[in-house]
């Protein structure tokens, strides 16, 4: 499922935009991303993977994570390849994955792959590894927030950082 929907009046979007644009430096931008995803989108398991020029999952590397084991998520290769390919082509992709016991009920979990753009190139993929159990999907307003991250986080994260990071 790919998404790109119109913006709408949503206080969360204004707050997220303000927080992102006022972030100073990469560390603060990462904290802004964590705040937006944790507080507004309902996900506490996040990985940000940079993508090399080859634009291929195996050439990716985990830049930053929250709530996941970095050793188990060193590259994007651990994730569903077709979902990743769509993300690497610039599509926000939301999928469900089989429950793995973390939610105590074995329910399906929602996972989202968000392409991070910088100067019209996909430089990273942000993976919301599993939404909280009470969050059953991403609605239109959520997708507007995700689009904001997709469009703006790359510049804030990587401008001024050496090219080997992005």
């Amino acid at each position: 499922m790919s998404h790109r929907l119109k913006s709408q009046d949503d206080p969360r979007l204004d707050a997220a935009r303000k927080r992102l644009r006022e972030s100073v430096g990469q560390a603060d931008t990462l904290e802004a991303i964590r705040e937006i995803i944790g507080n507004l989108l309902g996900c506490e398991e996040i990985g940000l993977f940079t993508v090399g020029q080859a634009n291929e999952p195996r050439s990716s590397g985990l830049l930053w994570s929250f709530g996941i084991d970095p050793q188990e998520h060193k590259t994007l290769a651990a994730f569903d390849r077709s979902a990743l390919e769509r993300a690497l082509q610039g599509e926000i992709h939301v999928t469900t994955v089989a429950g793995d016991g973390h939610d105590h009920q074995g329910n399906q979990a929602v996972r989202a792959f968000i392409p991070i753009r910088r100067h019209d190139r996909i430089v990273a993929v942000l993976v919301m590894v599993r939404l909280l159990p009470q969050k059953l999907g991403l609605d239109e307003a959520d997708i507007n927030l995700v689009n904001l991250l997709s469009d703006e986080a790359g510049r804030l994260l990587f401008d001024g950082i050496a090219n080997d990071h992005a």
Partner: protein
Amino acid sequence: MPAKKILLVDDSQTALIVARSILEKRTSYQCVTASDGLEAVTKANDEHPDLVLMDVVMPRMNGFEACKKMREQATTRETPIVLLTTRGEENYMEAGFQSGCNDYLTKPINGEELVRLLQSYLGEE
């Protein structure tokens, strides 16, 4: 009659902005803010809010500890406290109620749910 006052407590400025925006847009409640539990205990004592809406995971003093402190203060002993957390597990909620909170909401905030809950304590304005 003066507007009902809500003390919003969260270490995330993003979360504070969102909660304030929702309440200012949909209600006439007045909002004051604090960015951790320690500040919240002091502010609750000084500001006499009609309700406290407080995050759980915060630096310096978390929401449970702040809730307990507020229950020890005469000025805030009876003030309704609603805790906000991203964790929906039952045992987590139990700890919240043991600390003295009245109610519990899980993040991400749903605007309608939030307003409905606050109105159930404060009435519609």
